[in-house]
């Protein structure tokens, strides 16, 4: 079972931090900033996990999730959504769209690692 992550995040510093964390944990990280091409990138890369920002240039994180869930073989793909907009409404909409887990910025590194490991483990069992 591989440990490959696709990260879509438009804030370069945050991308760098997450990449650092995950690589130290043994993941390979494929990072992108553009929302418009995200679905293609994910389909091609076939990752074990996706980390998505909510507000992205080109296409919003919610739309990307909806499109992923509409594709064969991607319905069960774990998606961790990060957002700087932490309102309840956003969380509800994200869960409705098919996001597996929702995290509000700023987060602690430990939280992110735990969440990634949990999601990966669940997906493995499932």
């Amino acid at each position, binding site marked *: 079972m591989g440990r490959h992550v696709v990260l879509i995040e438009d804030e370069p*510093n945050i991308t760098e931090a997450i990449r650092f964390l995950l690589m130290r944990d043994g993941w390979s990280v494929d990072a992108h900033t553009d929302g418009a091409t995200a679905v293609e990138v994910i389909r091609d890369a076939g990752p074990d996990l996706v980390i998505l920002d909510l507000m992205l*240039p080109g296409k919003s994180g919610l739309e990307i999730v909806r499109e992923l869930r509409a594709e064969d073989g991607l319905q069960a793909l774990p998606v961790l959504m990060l957002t*700087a*907009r932490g309102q309840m409404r956003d969380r509800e909409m994200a869960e409705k769209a098919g996001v597996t887990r929702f995290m509000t910025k*700023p987060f602690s590194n430990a939280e992110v690692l735990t969440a990634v490991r949990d999601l990966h483990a669940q997906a493995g069992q499932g």
Partner: protein
Amino acid sequence: MASLNVLAFVCLAYVAFLFFIAFWADRMATRGKSAAWMRSPLIYTLSLSIYCTAWTFYGAVGYAARSGLEFVTIYLGPSLVMICWWWGLRKLVRIGRSQRITSIADLLSSRYGKSNLLAAGVTILAVIGVTPYISLQLQSVTLSFAIFAEADPLRGYNETSIVFWVAAGLAVFAILFGTRNLNANERHHGVVTAVALEAIVKLAALLAVGIFVVWGIAGGVGETLARIDASRIGQWNVDGSRWATITFLAAAAFICLPRMFQVMVVENEDERHLRIASWAFPLYLLLISMFVVPIAVVGLDLLPAGSNPDMFVLTVPLQQGQQGLAMLSFLGGFSSATSMVIVAAMALSTMVSNHIVMPVWLRLQNRQASVSGDVRDVVLLSRRVSIAVIMALGYFYYHLSGGAAALAAIGLISFAGVAQLLPALVGGLFWRGATRSGALAGLTVGFAIWLYTMMLPALGGGLLPEHILRHGLFGLSWLRPEALFGIEGLDPTVHAVMWSMSLNALVFCLVSLMSFPSPLERLQGAQFVNVFDHSAGPRGWTGSVAQCEDLMIMSQRILGATEAQAFFQRERMRQGGRGPLPEPTPAFLERLERELSASIGAAAAHAMIGQIAGGSSVSVADLLAVADETAQMLEYSSRLETQSAELSATARKLRETNEKLTQISEQKDAFLSQVSHELRTPMTSIRAFSEILRDAGQLSPQEQRRYAGIIHDETLRLTRLLNDLLDLSVLESGQVSLNITAGTLTEVLDHAVATALAGSEMPLTVRRSPEAEGFRLSSDLDRLAQVFINLIANAQKYCDAEQPELTVSASVSGGRLHIVFTDNGSGVPADAQQMIFEKFARVSPERAGGAGLGLAICREVMQRLGGDVSYLPGHGGGAFRVSLPAAGEKAA
């Protein structure tokens, strides 16, 4: 001797003939082909002869036989009116025509402010007053039948059944004649023509009998005169008070009797006919009364003592075996009775229907009369029923009074009854101060006295207990019906007329003086009294909101569809309008009201138009001092309207404010959400890298430095963001204090360029033209520099050219200084140009360094400085223009 059957047949044939004449005349009239003679003064004069009823035909001879020459007073009164007072009648006719009056009740109601109460009162008085008169006709026709019946071998007719059948027959006859249709102008050409014909028949019959008596029996004029001298009739035996009283009564009745009013005023075709009638009608009266005395004298001589002198006209020829003459005489009497009954029933039924039935019906219809039900049918039905009821009243009166009284006595009771209308009528015509209250009070008093002193005693013991007659009401002797206030010894007729008329007139005058007329009364009063001055004067429909369609619907119901459409068509033509219906101008409403009042009376028409047009009734020169109730209502309602308009304006304002507040609240939420997002993003980086620095063991020195640098940069970014937010909030709240100083544009630009370039490593070439920048400025130079710095920093961040360049140029035009910053990049996309000045608006996030507040701050600053900043599309790259008021000429 003719049997009763033959007699009945002759009557029916005669009636059929009359009916044919009336029908034919009506047809001619509706086709507009009525011959000239039908509208001639002759017909008018002859129609006036319905004054001469069976009472005149039979009763005058009886009167002469009993009381001598006193019968002349009955003819004297009308003759005096026609000869001496024709100008007063002319006024009556003029008013009747100009106001479309339908009856005497309508006239009085119209004069006294269109009061329906008054109209109803007059109607009741008229019905009660005329009832004895109708009964009199029944009695005379019955008597004449009885004369023939006595000689009929097949007896078995009793008097009661004859009276009943006569009454029923006359009722049917009157209904057939008078209410065949509801004429728009309420003229009955057919009836008038038939009445004129009957006038000729009765005159001819009486003249024939008279000639037969003088030359056939008495043997010439000389012989006749000798006989007269020999009889007691010839004795000049005059009771002055009775003569004066009865002459006055006859004159008053001639004017006030509903049927006389009908033929004289309502049916009048042309005012000028009155001039002819003023001598022709007295002549007719002279002719019809010429042979009264000879017939009476010869009758007294010829017939056995005890025979009824009222029937001499019939019995003298019969006694002489002149069957043909007797038949002609019978027809004459029949004509007199029928013409009177028909016209009286018609006139009364119009009054009853217009002033009693219609108002009640209108009220029952809950003010919806204008739009529901067919008023025509109701009017016709109510008139027919009224006729039947009036005839029934006459029939019952006959029974009550026992049918025994002399014809003349019954006639005088009627005369005195309707004469009560005289004070109100004459006062209304000539005295502007006469009021409705006065008229009502006078009528009530006069009517009550007449009822008490004349009508009830005449009915005998049946209605008025004997002890009242003897000892007065409540045993008060001064209230004895035939000796009021203790004045005894007067002739009962004189007594009753004197008291009723004088108190009537006195109360009328006093109450009129004491009461204050309503505006409408004053106006109508002026119109009546000065009818010759302004016959066509407006009566004051000021309503401009009339629903013409509703008026049309209502008019159709009253006038009939064809009539109404023709009228509306005429009105539309007259106005020259283009629409399907005429404009509801006051003049039009005025004419419509008159048109309707011809069918249903003034008060009802006024009410119905009022319901639809909803306008106020009048206020013109006559009403200066009067605070009209309607005006108050209008004022009140307009005040209400104003208030309601104000309320709805306030409500609208509140709604707008609420919308604005909601919008502002939404903007605030969006703003907070944006601020949160902008704060969380740098904080995320700071937290992540500080945790990495803290937790991760083996980090290279480069890594450590790099991560600490990121934390440092993001902290600066946070600080900048907070500064911008605070700055913006100060600027937006308007609490910013400006520090106005003098300087030059060059100095400000120097400072701005240096600051902007120093804070960033991004390369940017700034091109300036120092010779064009030497403008003096008087402004907050630090704030202006802030704007410039923001614009230069934007160029640094967003200019996508390989060799980014920014050109700064300045110029003055229209009193304003313009500074334009143009870079050589691709500029702002067209769809984003509108929003770049909004808070947190960023065109390309991946290159964003700031929070998107820079341009928003620029806009706020420039607004405070009295200038503005805007994006200039189509300048090759991103181009921003800052403009502000020019302070003066170039510095150097």
